[in-house]
């Protein structure tokens, strides 16, 4: 291909011209592929740019700490939404982590057989269920019978969303603790309980925390289930048994409203959500690096 041919030979070789055409196509194709990759990455930058520019206008101390004001009254903020997000995610984590860990421990210790495989299958099924269907489940179980919306039902829905990732990762993390560490603990005369909880699990912790951070990053922006579980509120609320404001829900409500002041606040809320997701993802990456570093020792 790179042979040096004289011009007369070039004319003689019938394939040379098509070679040039192939080369042009190849360059075009490569450029196209580059553009696609750039497009995908570029869209992120475009969205981020809009959110930052529009959102920064709305963010100030009042925005972060105050209750929403009625329409017509300027100012106000998403303070109750931020609080609600923290409470709901905190509750969801408190429920999802023990349940996910226990199931992961079970799968790691008793890995083979029909029952563990069934559990893994169910976990895969759950990870594919749309969040709105999970919201319906939370509604049917915790809202309809009790006849009122509650933050707890939202936490329940978030817990279901976080579980598959936690289960899968804790199983993998426990499995990747070297067998020799576990045997060393057992050989000392430790019970399975002590060996797992005090030796194996702590070694697997960085990977599990990484997964937890990613799971939280996912639910922090999740809105669909909130529509009929937490429902939202105009007031400060810390009682999980009551409807509660959530930041993602406020962004949604403000965005589809016809009022420009609220729409600006929607951008502000969106900026907060993106910041939260970024910080959590970065934290997860740092944790991941620490997890692989520990295991290599």
């Amino acid at each position, binding site marked *: 291909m790179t042979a040096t041919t004289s011009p007369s030979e070039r004319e003689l070789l019938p394939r040379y011209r098509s070679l040039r055409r192939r080369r042009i196509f190849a360059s075009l194709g490569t450029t196209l592929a580059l553009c696609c990759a750039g497009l995908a990455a570029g869209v992120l930058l475009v969205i981020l740019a809009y959110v930052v520019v529009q959102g920064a206008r709305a963010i100030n101390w009042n925005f972060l700490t105050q209750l929403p004001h009625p329409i017509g009254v300027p100012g106000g903020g998403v303070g109750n939404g931020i609080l609600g997000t923290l409470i709901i995610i905190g509750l969801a984590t408190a429920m999802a982590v023990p349940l996910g860990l226990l199931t992961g421990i079970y799968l790691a210790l008793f890995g*083979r057989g029909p029952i563990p495989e069934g559990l893994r299958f169910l976990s895969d099924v759950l990870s594919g269920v749309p969040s709105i269907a999970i919201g319906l489940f939370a509604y049917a179980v915790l809202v309809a019978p009790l006849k009122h919306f509650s933050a707890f039902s939202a936490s329940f829905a978030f817990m279901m969303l976080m579980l598959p990732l936690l289960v899968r990762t804790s199983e993998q993390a426990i499995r990747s603790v*070297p067998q*020799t*560490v*576990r*045997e*060393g*603990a*057992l*050989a*000392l*005369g*430790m*019970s399975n309980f002590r060996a797992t909880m005090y*030796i194996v699990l*702590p*070694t697997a*912790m960085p990977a599990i925390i990484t997964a937890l951070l990613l799971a939280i990053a996912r639910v922090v922006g999740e809105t669909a289930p909130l529509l009929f579980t937490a429902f939202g509120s105009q007031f400060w609320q810390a009682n999980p048994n009551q409807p509660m404001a959530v930041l993602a829900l406020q962004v949604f409500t403000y965005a589809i409203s016809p009022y420009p002041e609220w729409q600006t606040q929607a951008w502000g809320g969106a900026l907060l959500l993106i910041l939260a997701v970024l910080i959590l993802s970065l934290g997860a990456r740092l944790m991941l690096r620490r997890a692989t570093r*520990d295991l290599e*020792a």
Partner: protein
Amino acid sequence: MTAAMAALAESVLAADDLSAYYGSNKAVGNVTIGFRRKAVTALIGPSGCGKTTMLRCLNRIHEVAFDAQVEGRVLLDGQDIYAAGIDPMSIRRRIGMVFQRPNPFPTLSILDNTLACAGRGVGRREKLEVAERALRSAALWDEVKDKLKTSPLRLSGGQQQRLCIARAVAAQPDVLLMDEPTASLDPIATAVIEELMSSLTEEFTIVAVTHNMQQAARVSDCTAFMLADETGVGRLIEVDETAKLFTKPSDRRTEDYITGRFG
């Protein structure tokens, strides 16, 4: 086999017609052997002869593998450790193990590693004393006494292995099992640990698997030779005083092995 029978009677640890399986694969077949109290017994043999599996049956670590099964008896002070209702945990407290590659617990400090199974209900002061005693008997105290709270992962391979020995010793077992303890170490670290093995016999009975015949000859009082038969089952060929086994082995196959004709 009369030497073995006699050893059985007065030994602290003995195997009686012990067979070990992975699923339906028999890895170790019908081994009967006694391990002399407060002596070092070496288990030698070529790769795949079942010596490590045999060792792991002695403290019931073999059964941690998924398909592991066991037949026969292992007697600790005359009692069968595989009897129904016996908690493997209590057995492993009395029979400790050091593994081929050092395996300090990565999330615990050197001090906590040493004390991992040293018994509960001891006060702060006593804890340090227990740790010091264990680390001294592993010839590690002087090297780590100033960094007890640091991570064991910063220690060299030889030091980590001595830490594992200290950890096993701190639990005050009756017997110490060692699975090729110097296989992953350099010659100097190996020499340190071999010296340790002799001094440890003042308190413990030691059974050590080793790939290295010279090590067995240097370190042990008794040596047992294992070999896989035609079907792949590991058998005990000969067990005798070390000096005798290496100079005048009774079995042809032993002689072939120690003279390097195979393995």
